[in-house]
């Protein structure tokens, strides 16, 4: 559960890595564009300066001087920057001097400039000018240096970036682990409230927000523990202080019964003992309801229960009683329906639902139990149904429906206890809307809370 869960910390670290990657990529692109533009500009400046010089030479020394100078410049290998290329041609494009193979597609009359192919594999920046009526010149500089520079930059960014991302990841993970451990302690304390004492320790982090949360959690857990202990003590004392005197009273009645042969008196005494039993049952049901309500949402102590087997066994147990009451009891139970629960309480829940149905459906009626995966347990009958005014209140303690005759026995706690047990298991008991044809009947449906 802890491992598979989407941790906020892994998401934070992941986010930091993604953000770093995006920033690095942006920075790389910017550097790449700037360097590329700078190199282009440098080549343009060199070409233009060179061209101006050569135009000067032509003006002062004429075409022959120009040819000599071009040959001189081609003979020199530059120490830095890129190698120059020239082409001096007549107006028809016939080569007079220079090393370029043919006239590029640049118009000398407008001093057009652009990127041209130089040789087989190189490219460069070039400008063409018209020197005289039948003389034109192209000066070019290769921009080959751009590619290695840019790839160098890319490599540097890739290597540096990898180290950077790794560091971000590691530092992030390290920080996250620390935080995660602190948060996990709080979560653990809430998951296992019984061992929650571990939270009340020193503030190791100088009282930051998580320390505050830890302190609040510890206080809340301690209070919850105190409340549960007080609740348990009170209910145990209540049970003890009521059951013990009732037990003494019952003993006296038993003795009186044994000593008194008078039938009329014996009957009264037996009735009195019955009353004692009812008081005890009411007390027990009330305490059970309180305990179930207190444990609502608390999944500890629950184990997988074979609901299919449980429902089948209870239906079989009730079959004879239903038959004797002239009721038809049918059950349709899907196999292998399980639930995490308290088996004894679940048995009580199903039993109370059946007790309720058997109590209110008149002879000749029908009760149908259906268990489906989900789990969904439906208890349907064709009895008098529930008065609309009672629908919202039948699960309340001591509430007896209007359709319940005076002769109907019971504590008025059966459905309230069933309701509390259902809630403790994350289930909800609902009553289907009455069918419009007025045929009556009641359908109780127990299913997972939406």
């Amino acid at each position, binding site marked *: 559960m802890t491992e598979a869960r989407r941790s906020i910390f892994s998401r934070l670290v992941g986010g930091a890595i993604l953000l770093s990657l995006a920033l690095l990529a942006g920075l790389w692109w910017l550097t790449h564009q700037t360097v590329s533009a700078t190199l282009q500009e440098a080549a343009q400046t060199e070409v233009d300066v060179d061209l101006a010089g050569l135009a000067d030479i032509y003006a002062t020394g004429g075409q022959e001087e120009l040819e000599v100078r071009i040959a001189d410049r081609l003979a020199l290998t530059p120490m830095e920057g890129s190698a120059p290329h020239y082409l001096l041609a007549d107006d028809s494009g016939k080569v007079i001097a220079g090393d370029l193979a043919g006239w590029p597609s640049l118009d000398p009359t407008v001093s057009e400039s652009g990127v041209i192919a130089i040789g087989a594999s190189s490219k460069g920046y070039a400008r063409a000018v018209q020197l005289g009526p039948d003389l034109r010149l192209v000066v070019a500089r290769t921009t080959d240096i751009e590619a290695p520079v840019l790839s160098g930059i890319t490599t540097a960014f890739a290597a540096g970036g990898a180290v950077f991302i790794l560091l971000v990841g590691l530092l992030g993970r390290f920080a996250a682990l620390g935080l995660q451990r602190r948060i996990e302690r709080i979560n653990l304390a809430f998951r296992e409230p019984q061992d929650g004492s571990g939270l009340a320790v020193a503030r190791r982090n100088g009282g930051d927000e998580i320390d505050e949360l830890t302190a609040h959690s510890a206080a809340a857990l301690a209070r919850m523990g105190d409340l549960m202990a007080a609740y348990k003590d009170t209910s145990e004392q209540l049970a003890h202080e009521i059951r*013990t005197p009732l037990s003494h009273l019952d003993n006296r009645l038993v003795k009186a019964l044994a000593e008194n042969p008078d039938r009329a008196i014996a009957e009264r005494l037996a009735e009195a003992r019955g009353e004692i039993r009812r008081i005890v049952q009411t007390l027990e049901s009330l305490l059970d309801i309180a305990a179930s309500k207190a444990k609502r949402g608390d999944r500890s102590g629950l184990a997988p229960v074979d609901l299919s087997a449980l429902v089948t066994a209870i239906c079989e147990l009730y079959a004879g009683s239903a038959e004797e009451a002239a009721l038809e009891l049918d059950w349709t139970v899907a196999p292998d329906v399980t639930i995490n629960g308290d088996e004894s309480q679940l048995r009580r829940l199903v*039993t109370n639902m059946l007790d309720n149905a058997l109590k209110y459906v008149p002879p000749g009626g029908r009760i149908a139990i259906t268990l489906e995966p989900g789990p969904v347990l439906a208890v349907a009958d064709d009895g008098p149904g529930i008065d609309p005014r009672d629908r919202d209140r039948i699960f309340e303690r001591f509430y007896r429906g209007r359709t319940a005759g005076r002769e109907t026995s019971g504590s008025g706690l059966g459905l309230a206890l069933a309701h509390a047990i259902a809630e403790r298991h994350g289930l909800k008991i609902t009553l289907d809307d009455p069918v419009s044809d007025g045929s009556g009947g009641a359908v109780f449906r127990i299913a997972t809370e939406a």
Partner: protein
Amino acid sequence: MRILYVEDDPRSAAAVGEILAQSGDVLVWEDNGSAALLRAGLEPFDAIILDRMLGDIDGLTITRRMREGGIGTPILILSALGRSSDRAEGLDTGADDYLAKPFEPEELVARLRALHRRSTGREHSAVILYGAFECHVKARTAFRDNRHLPLSPKEFELFRYFMENAGEVVTREMLLRHVWKMDFDPQTNVVDVNIGRLRRKLEDGFERQALETILGSGYRLLEGRA
């Protein structure tokens, strides 16, 4: 039977003393846990009855200590804490049975008898014989006077429980707990009805009664001999 009773309320102790005197058992009473622990370690008892809420050590702790100390005597907890969860707690701790106050005197006696019988190992045989009845535990078949009784699986379990406690009173609560795993008594008369059905199957075609109803406390299997 010789029984140790640990109870800090003298009136409860006196009441239980009277009940057990009537059933012909010997009761040894201790009013605190420490003395009881000491005594249980020194003297042999057939069963121990423990109250839960004692002045010094509570009944559950006594149970745990006795079990840890190797005392295997059957323990019945007799307590004012009678909710299902209280019962489950007691049985989980190592007690063999749990009875809530107030109780029927016959119930206490029946439970003690059943505990004693279980601890002396009479119930583990493959075939249980009693009077005219035979219960083949493994084959899950039942006979009366060598005639096969057509019992349903649940009826067989009910019959088997009666055979294991043959001749003794079996109470409704005992049946609910051992046969249907219920630690409460449903409002509907399910036990009576199921017993009625078993009774018909045990008695159909025979002259003598097989199951006796003991008013207010439970049922007893009879020998059923012609």
